[in-house]
């Protein structure tokens, strides 16, 4: 990777992380209906934006912890890992066709879902809506 492209990738990741941190967990925990929708969910999620990892600890629909960087040997239940390009496209308003949904991104190889997927799948719309919050205009 050239120096210039590494710098631009890091800049993009910084921008995406700032956008994510601005929206999550504040807009989840601050919305009683959001918390109610996730009331049966308690799980730890590894979220990866490019090379940056976050640990999201969900407890009965609230996000109890949103930590940038994982502690050593930290376990998690499932992981959502996306390329910086994928998250950047997902958070455009409107996103481009084929880049507008988690599964559109997994299908094109820009995102992976790993680990015990049960908590994710059983609460799928809740997670899709959380992960659309950084989009200008928010979740649909």
């Amino acid at each position, binding site marked *: 990777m050239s120096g210039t492209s590494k710098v631009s990738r890091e800049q993009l990741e910084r921008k995406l992380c700032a956008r994510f941190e601005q929206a999550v967990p504040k807009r989840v925990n601050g919305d009683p209906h959001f918390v109610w929708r996730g009331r049966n969910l308690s799980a730890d999620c590894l979220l990866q934006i490019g090379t940056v990892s976050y640990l999201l600890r969900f407890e009965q629909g609230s996000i109890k912890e949103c930590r940038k960087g994982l502690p050593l040997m930290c376990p998690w239940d499932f992981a959502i890992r996306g390329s910086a390009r994928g998250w950047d496209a997902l958070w455009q308003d409107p996103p481009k*066709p084929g880049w507008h949904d988690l*599964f559109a991104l997994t299908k094109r190889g820009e995102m992976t879902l790993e680990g015990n997927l049960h908590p994710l799948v*059983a609460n*799928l*719309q809740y997670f899709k809506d959380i992960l659309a919050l950084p989009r200008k205009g928010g979740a649909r």
Partner: protein
Amino acid sequence: MKANPVEPIIGRYTTVSILGEDCRIYFEEAGQGIPLLCLHTAGADTRQFRHLMGDEDVTEKFRVITFDMPWHGKSYPPVGWEKREYQLTTELYVAMIRSFSAAIGLDRPVAMGCSIGGRIILQLAHAHGREFRALIGLESADFQQPWYDTAWLHRSDVHGGEVCAALISGLIAPQSPDAHRHETLWQYMQSGPGIFRGDLYFYRVDCDLRGKLGGIDTSVCPLYLLTGEYDFSCRPEDTLRTAKTIPGVKVKIMKEVGHFPMSENPAQFKKYIMPVLNEIWKREK
């Protein structure tokens, strides 16, 4: 409140023998003229076509008819359903459409199907084209790559309705109005247990039409394929690839529409479907 709140759609039941089994079928219709038989998507029902059936520009020229497939909507499963798993096959799907059409006396209808309905339209064009005045495939392709494990659709520890709706929610275009988006999702939330998955047996396992669409004569039965640009399940490139194998087919990629054009954004869909319907109407006139 509007002066006339009663919609023109009429719903009725008929019992049809499909591959030797009696099935009580719920169907709806509106309008007069050329019969236009509409086929809903997997795990859904007739409600997807309510906007088309309520549009006078359509119903003044077409008798729009749509039915709930057995196991869907208000059509019951056949007697004994509790002792078997539902799996839609190509043979069953074709028999269902032809038996229903014959049972209510349709004379060479136009058929329009979406998603699995779009796939079966291709099979109808291939094997039964002479029985139709025209065929319209929405979100239609000979094959598309799977993008999730359908085992998640029918488990005791995951709510089937919620997971079905959540999975397909991404197939709706971001521009589609919220009211129509959530109405479309509600239909998926109401499907019977395992029915969406059973329909996808047809889609993923039983009906790979790649290399099998020879002999389609579009001069006898015109064929139209329309696909939404936001459909990442049946992608525009899947439809375009399919179209390349069918001489005379007419293709259109619809802007700002996903996998459910008629229900997720009726106004946008109308821009694309009216020219097709008008062309069919002029041809028949």
